[in-house]
């Protein structure tokens, strides 16, 4: 009788490999242990590397394995402005996701807007930008995009003190703007038409808005950007992969 032998070693896909299979334009694992380069492993490659400013590297275990930095809520950020990002970012078809964990529960009620991710466009601030942030209103997070003035905004309740995956998708072609929290999307709203074409200086950051204002308080890991709106199934898979 022949017996079929199972492989002794099963090859397991890493979380990074899982993410990269979805072809993000930017994937910043934020897992560096030294230096100031926040390496991008997405399709825009090293031209879209970020720069660590002030964060404490390798400070906590991240979802999906590896370590991640701490943002001090005072003057820390990862600056991601680059000509490569400006050229490669599709402002009309877009997905952003990041894992986040706040320092403690009081962050949710501190009355300060704290940014997960911000990209500001054009010389007239406030008319074209993306923002994923904790609101000044207690226990709320916000996905917002100003498209030539009018805003699409999604506020959601959140007071999680463990890791959570936050982000959202924008598709002007489908006129859908959807925020996602832990793989669960909310009701779509319309998008408007984005007209931003150039970056405002210093207003492209992970964990801050500008000049370290709106600084995040806690840990961020696996910041990801795509030039398309991911499906709900894809986002759920990315969430599950980090658990």
């Amino acid at each position, binding site marked *: 009788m022949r017996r079929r032998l199972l492989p002794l070693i099963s090859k397991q896909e890493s979380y990074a490999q899982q993410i990269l299979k979805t072809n993000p334009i930017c994937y910043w694992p934020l897992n560096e242990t030294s230096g*100031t380069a926040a390496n991008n492993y997405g399709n825009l490659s090293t031209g879209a590397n970020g720069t660590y400013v002030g*964060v404490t590297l390798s400070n906590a275990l991240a979802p999906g394995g590896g370590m991640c930095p701490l943002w001090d809520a*005072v003057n820390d950020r990862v600056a991601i402005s680059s000509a490569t990002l400006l050229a490669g970012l599709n402002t009309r078809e877009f997905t952003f996701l990041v894992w986040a964990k706040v320092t403690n529960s009081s962050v949710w009620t501190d009355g*300060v807007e704290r940014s997960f991710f911000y990209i500001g466009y054009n010389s007239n601030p406030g008319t074209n930008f993306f923002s994923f942030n904790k609101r000044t209103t207690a226990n709320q997070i916000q996905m917002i995009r100003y498209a030539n003035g009018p805003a699409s905004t999604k506020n959601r309740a959140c007071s999680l003190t463990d890791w959570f995956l936050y982000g959202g998708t924008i598709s002007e072609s489908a006129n859908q703007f959807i925020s996602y929290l832990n793989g669960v999307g909310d009701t779509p709203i319309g998008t408007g038409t984005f007209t931003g074409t150039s970056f405002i200086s210093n207003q492209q950051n992970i964990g801050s808005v500008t000049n370290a*204002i709106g600084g995040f308080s806690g840990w961020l890991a696996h910041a990801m950007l795509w030039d398309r709106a991911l499906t709900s199934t894809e986002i759920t898979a990315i969430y599950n992969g980090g658990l």
Partner: protein
Amino acid sequence: MFHGYFYIEVLSLTAGQKTTLVDQLQQMGLKNNSLYPHERNHWRTRPDNNAVIFEAVFDDTLLTAESIKTRLVNIFNVPSNQVTFTTTQTAYGPVVTYTYSNVQRLRLGIFGGLSATLQQSRDAVLAFLAANGAAWTEIL
């Protein structure tokens, strides 16, 4: 050596004087080539551009009231005895106010004081920011 946070608030300096001072302070730091970003000098500017919070690993002898006075004396290019200062203790640490020609010119605050640990200094600056959020926080 002091790894922590301090701030300056410009009360009455010309734009050129302010730029000179801020440029000097941005160059301070004992580990600005460190492999660890939180040890390098980095800062946050208040939206009105009249105050800055710095964090780095500093030579604490360069952050004393007298040392900052010397910088101001050089910036104003006046005799040393014409710049005076007073020090007060606040909930966030010592604050030094500098006066020249009967006008208050600059405020210096060391979050937690120069003997504070990084965490103590961070706790102090967070309390300061919480108490002064309207001035320091950009609300979108």
